[in-house]
């Protein structure tokens, strides 16, 4: 009888011991899990801080220089002489005006029409400028001050250069100039055009 009691008490003791060991294991596992979680949180905070600081760094750039560059490029190209004496074709800006309103006009005998000449002249000047500095993709977008739409409802604009720049969202560095407004009086009517330049790395 007494031996049975001893066995039972021994069994009860080992059971308690097993329960205690199990509980200890579970608490150790929980502790390990919480330590892991803590480590992961610390790593996430560290990575977040790094990403935040790097993001902040990428926004600091030569904004003043790029703005000056792209606006000056538009102005300089528009002010350059084409070499033709016709008043509609003297400067590149005159040629753009002519290409928009009278695209079939010829600046002289045997000379391509205004639209073709504007394309050729601008691409030639951009190539010369690119050779002297660095080559780039460019797009001159010419729109009137008032909205003009074609029969399909699309606004009529004259694009000279790389058309892919207009819709592309994948360009790494796309710079927009301020719109340049040029006006001309023909007869009693005044016509106004807005020209914008978009450039990106080639």
């Amino acid at each position: 009888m007494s031996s049975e009691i001893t066995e039972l008490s021994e069994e009860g003791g080992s059971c308690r011991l097993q329960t205690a060991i199990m509980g200890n294991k579970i608490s150790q596992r929980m502790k390990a899990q919480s330590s892991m979680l803590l480590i992961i949180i610390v790593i996430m905070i560290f990575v977040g801080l790094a990403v935040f600081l790097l993001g902040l760094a990428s926004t600091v750039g030569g904004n003043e220089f790029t703005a000056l560059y792209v606006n000056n490029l538009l102005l300089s190209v528009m002010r350059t002489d084409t070499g033709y004496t016709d008043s509609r074709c003297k400067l590149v800006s005159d040629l753009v005006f002519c290409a928009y309103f009278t695209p079939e006009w010829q600046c002289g005998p045997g000379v391509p029409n205004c639209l073709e000449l504007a394309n050729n002249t601008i691409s030639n000047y951009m190539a010369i400028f690119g050779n002297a500095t660095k080559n780039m993709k460019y797009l001159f977008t010419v729109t009137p001050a008032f909205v003009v739409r074609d029969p399909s409802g699309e606004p009529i604009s004259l694009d000279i250069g790389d058309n892919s720049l207009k819709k592309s969202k994948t360009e790494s560095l796309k710079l927009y100039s301020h719109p340049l407004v040029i006006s001309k009086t023909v007869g009693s009517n005044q016509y106004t055009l807005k020209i914008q330049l978009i450039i990106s790395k080639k």
Partner: protein
Amino acid sequence: MDCKSTGARKGQSEIMEYILMVVFIVAAIIAIIIFLTWWNLQQFQMDTFKNRQDRVVGIGQYMMGDYMFTNGDSVFDDAKLTAINATMTCQELQKILGTNWYVKIKALDMDGEKPCRWNDYPDCNVWSICAYKENAKDRFGQNFPVNVYRKVSDKTALAVLYVEVYS
């Protein structure tokens, strides 16, 4: 005996855990120190770059807006540029714009580079203001699109204004 060994193992595992935590924390602190040092260096380099770029932009804007060189609106006058090259010294311009800079204006209406001196005008296309120093250190330069007005032919040509600063 079993209980003792279990306790010893528990103690060992706790020590290992603490050691791991300490190693991780030390590694994290070292990583943060390295990152912040790198960050400071980057910021310093960026500030240096920005200062130089601001200086280049400042000199460029001054040149493009000054009637001593231009007819206004960043159209350089070739006659004025040639006259400045012949009559003014670099020291006089350095009183206005500081030292350690160099400017070159190149009209793109001619092939190659023909320096503009009094005798070569108007068949030339390059004007250098303040001498280019071969042995200068930490050079930083930028190009700006500009125009040059050709007084003799009454034409405006596309040109490049190159501004360089150095130490």
